[in-house]
């Protein structure tokens, strides 16, 4: 995601040696938006092991979704020197 920093008064700042910019960062939007769309999961059926859909979807689908998305972004944006 873009970041803007202040301009030095002595003219344009030198390009940063490193940057956090990456297309992979957009993947982070998915687990932020999906769990807030209540109409997707606010229902009873199908039940799983007695759990209504509302509960098992949030516990068993959305949590792994958050973990995997964040993990992928971490792996793909890891700096070469690390």
């Amino acid at each position, binding site marked *: 995601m873009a970041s803007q920093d202040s301009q030095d008064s002595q003219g344009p700042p030198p390009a940063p040696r490193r940057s956090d910019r990456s297309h992979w960062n957009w993947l982070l939007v998915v687990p932020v938006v999906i769990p807030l769309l209540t109409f997707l999961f606010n229902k009873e059926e199908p039940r799983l092991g007695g759990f209504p859909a509302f509960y098992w979807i949030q516990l068993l689908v*959305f949590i792994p979704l*958050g973990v995997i998305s964040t993990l992928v972004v971490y792996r793909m944006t*890891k700096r070469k020197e690390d």
Partner: protein
Amino acid sequence: MSSDHVTELVIFGLLFALVSGMGFVAARWRRPTTMDSLDEWGLGGRNFGSWVSWFLIGGDLYTAYTFVAVPALVFGAGAMGFYAVPYTIVVYPLVFLVLIRLWSVSHVHGFVTPADFVRARFGSPTLALVVAITGIVATMPYIALQLVGIEAVLKAMGVEGHLPIIIAFAILAAYTYQSGLRAPALIAFVKDVLIYLVIIVAVIYIPSKIAGGWGGIFDAAQAKFDKTPAPGDGIFLNDANQLNYAMLALGSALALFLYPHSITGVLASKNRNVIKRNMAALPAYSFVLGLIALLGFMAIAAGVKPIGTDTNTVVPVLFDQMFPSWFAGVAFAAVGIGALVPAAIMSIAAANLFTRNIYKEYIRKDATEKQEATVSKLVSLIVKVGAVACILLLDPQFSIDLQLIGGVIILQTLPAVALGLMTRWFHRGALIAGWAAGLAWGLWMLYEIPNPAKGKEHFGGSAYNLSELGFDTKMTIYVGVLALALNLLVAIIGTVILKAAKVKDGEDATRTDDYTADEGDPKVKDLELTGST
């Protein structure tokens, strides 16, 4: 007191004594050459790796109060209380890119608090003071609520009176004074192992004792909510509270890492990768929190009656009824110790804010590192005495109200702290104006919300009726999100006006490269003091 309670108390007491001992020994863990600086006392040497950070931040964010209040909410209102799950799913991807920038710039400049950053970024001691005071005010009731968590457990064991809590907090204060952030970091291991153990046992053992297992638990909860006259409860969301569910989750997620104690946990990490790995690994706690929330439904199915009118006691009473007494003792210890970790970190964070942004800024500008550490240690004691006094002298309900307010007001520091990390576009004057506007409107909305069920006319919750704003709807929305929207609007318009009028803005003491720096990169202090220390 029955003999069962004696067994529980003995186990509880033993585990409590164990972690207290660990708290004092922690000063020697990763032994620093000196404890006389905030980097060591207040941030554990800024050197925690992935595992320690995972336990520390997890122990910090998922507090004892969460463990009793979330299932209590589910017990009382149903699905709405489950918002804690999406809240803690959304938060990590949301703050991922922001926190690594905060870590980097703090690493380079030696920032200890969010207000330190704001001061350097916007060149405004006033804005920093505003952020610091907001942080302290939001944190204080949070510490007090940890005592409510311990008190709920003690009540379930049949312990009356306030003396045990005073003793527990006195011990906590003593080892935090001595060991600083190392104490909660070490104790967090015990806390989390106990919590995981108790919850895994609970979700396997308790449903096996309830007719119909998990299905029976949800059906029993549905049956209970169907009988109540309240329209908002049930095991699913309804048209009126769906939006509030999502906005409460989002607003709480935005607020979480603005709390000074969360930032303390992040800044204690060794490098950026530790933070990134933790953003992926911390949702393990969210899973546990979701199961803990469901203890509220289990309590309904098991026919649990809270002690008196205190619904926070439903989980302790459930444990007391269902578990053999020795294991109930373990479970109570898990909650009790769960209160100590965040209480310690919160008091350290509040003390650091006072030291760095009030004491050093306004009282003693030339304070040495040693003096800073001394002041922070003393203030951490005062903060805990204040928290105990809050609970003993005032109605605990007052702390709960304050905590509700705390979430709304800490959100008002978002433009300066979180957006400030991403952009330097905002004018310092506009940020102060936005903060004031969001704060005022947020407080006013909270004041206006009644809670007929509790017989309260004001501060009855955080769900604001959109019809009050002229919309023809029954929907409600989280006050914090509305107040933040106004805050942002004022900050944006104010910045445009102040820039057009060419009003002097503060100097930015940070550079673009500072926000991507990592472990091993030069720090400002090293550059200035080349050759010394």
